[in-house]
């Protein structure tokens, strides 16, 4: 499993002590290629205003974020996903 164990922060306040470490869901599931024709997966990464969720919130790794971005943009082009809401 690629999922990292929760990491304790040394010297942090108690609030930060058990903060869950983010991980890339695509790496966890060993996704080779993100299918742009499947809006069900992609729609998890376009919250509220249909903007692409940044890596800092989703925890996606750089490689998969790049793939995800391309997939979302293609899906928008063919009206599977909205450009804006």
């Amino acid at each position, binding site marked *: 499993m690629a999922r990292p164990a929760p990491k304790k922060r040394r010297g942090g306040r108690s609030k930060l002590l058990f903060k869950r470490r983010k991980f890339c869901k695509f790496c966890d599931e060993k996704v*080779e*290629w993100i*299918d742009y*024709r499947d*809006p069900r997966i992609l729609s998890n990464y376009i919250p509220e205003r249909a903007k692409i969720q940044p890596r800092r919130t989703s925890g996606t790794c750089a490689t998969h974020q790049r*793939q995800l971005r391309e997939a979302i943009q*293609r899906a*928008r*082009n*063919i*009206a*599977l*996903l*909205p*450009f804006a809401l």
Partner: protein
Amino acid sequence: MRRYETIFIADPEIPDDQVTGLVDGLTTAINEHQGDLIKTEDWGRKKLAYLVRKNQEGRYLRLEYHAGDSKLPHDLERRLRMSEPVLKFMTVRIDNDKKRLVWEAKQAVKEQERAERRAAEEEATAAAEAAKTAAGEVAAAEAPAEAPAEAPQEEATVPVEAGAVSADTAEETSRTETEPEV
């Protein structure tokens, strides 16, 4: 030879024969350019994520082909642009996307495995049913006293398997089926 896929959205209100006409026209264009059509898919009516020429829905179609000469994608796009019932189209080159090719190969393997499993399950249910009828005949012929003890057990196992198979196939058909025209 380069490989492409073209997804296009047709007006959902047009009749089926016009859709096939449209696809045939594109197929002849592919043949004219020494291309090679690999696959056509009809995804049926889908809700669009935004309005396209005031349409809320569209009929999605997908063509996958090898391009014979380099003019083919241009020519196909020109045709799509000129034809009235086509709302939107997109062409993507796929032969240079290695990750995708790996993914597609794995999907194909999975698909085949699923088909094999389904065939095996169907065979198993058929065999079970045959066994059940045979057992019923035997029980009826030989020992009437023993039949009530054995028969309910047989009946209990068979419907469960049949249910599992039908659920599996139902899922499969719902994914590929074309939504009916209104």
